[in-house]
């Protein structure tokens, strides 16, 4: 019954549970001490405020991510359609080849499809004094996304679109000029 004391305080217990806790509080000095402890925690929770990133920055970022996902979704639809067509063609070709001389080896003229490296990966450390709103604004401005971190040393890994810079050196120079970023390493 002691474990229900926090909910006795927040007023969400049923009548029966409430009566049971009140009975416990009358009979047990330890339970009364526990009530005082949780009451102090409750008062602290009511008075504290957590600094939050700006709602507008957050919303802009969410919209950007939604649009990305929608683009990916439509691309995937096309890819699925294309994959189905390719499978059908491969199936037909296999059927034709099986009817030909089995000693001959065939390979597609296009070779293996290369996977495009479509994002820069960068490891950064933010300035200690950087406010959350400033970091959010920076990430939005760079069109960057946090993909990892923080490490024990406070290092984050970001993904940036490939068009952010012509090469790794230019990207490093661009990011090093940002006052909020103390350390920049472009991951090869």
């Amino acid at each position: 019954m002691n474990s229900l004391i926090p909910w006795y305080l927040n007023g969400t217990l049923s009548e029966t549970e409430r009566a049971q806790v009140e009975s416990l509080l009358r009979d047990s000095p330890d339970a009364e001490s526990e009530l005082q402890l949780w009451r102090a925690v409750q008062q602290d929770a009511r008075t504290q405020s957590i600094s939050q990133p700006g709602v507008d920055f957050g919303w802009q970022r969410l919209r950007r991510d939604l649009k990305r996902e929608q683009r990916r979704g439509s691309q995937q639809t096309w890819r699925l359609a294309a994959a189905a067509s390719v499978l059908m063609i491969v199936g037909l070709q296999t059927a034709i080849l099986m009817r030909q001389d089995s000693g001959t080896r065939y390979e597609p003229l296009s070779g293996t499809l290369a996977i495009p490296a479509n994002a820069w990966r960068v490891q950064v450390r933010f300035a200690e004094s950087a406010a959350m709103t400033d970091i959010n604004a920076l990430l939005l401005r760079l069109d960057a996304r946090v993909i990892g971190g923080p490490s024990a040393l406070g290092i984050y890994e970001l993904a940036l679109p490939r068009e952010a810079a012509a090469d790794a050196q230019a990207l490093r120079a661009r990011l090093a000029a940002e006052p909020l970023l103390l350390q920049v390493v472009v991951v090869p």
Partner: protein
Amino acid sequence: MTLPDEAQSRQWLEQIALGREAALEQFYRHYHGQVFQFARRLVSNDADAAELANETMMEVWRAAARFAGESRVRTWLFGIVNHRAIDLLRRRRRRHEHADELTDVADEAPACNLSDVIGGAQDARHVRDCVQQLPERQKAVVHLAFFEELSYPEVAQVLDVPIGTIKTRVMHAKQRLQHCLASLFAPLRGLA
């Protein structure tokens, strides 16, 4: 800002399920603060909390149609935050092997009497310091009970654990608070 009532929140979800971005924006603007604050209890820094809040709202966009209406919208929403946080911590654990972040740590019983440390609980700074030192999972229970004022079955639903686990976490949290307050308060009493 007043919180939207349950009917309004459900209406937004219906609209979001139809792909209406304007409804998502209203939903986001009303719940963003609560989502961020709860996320901040589950992870150790602001950047991760902002990331979790963003991922949660993306999930709302994708999963609004699956809201069954069996719980309050807020309970459903916090459940998404919790699951996203577990995913994040699992990824971290794989990367850094911080296994302790996901487990319920059973505490050793403190060698002090609760009534002896209540004096320490009168100092708000002591209380805040000690709550901050609770493991994330115990902090989450404290947050949902006292900041969001959810009932204990709702807390169990959000954290996706049995009610018995919530009660155990409360007892462990109490022991940790007791131990922490004793360590802060006992030296002061010695000086008095």
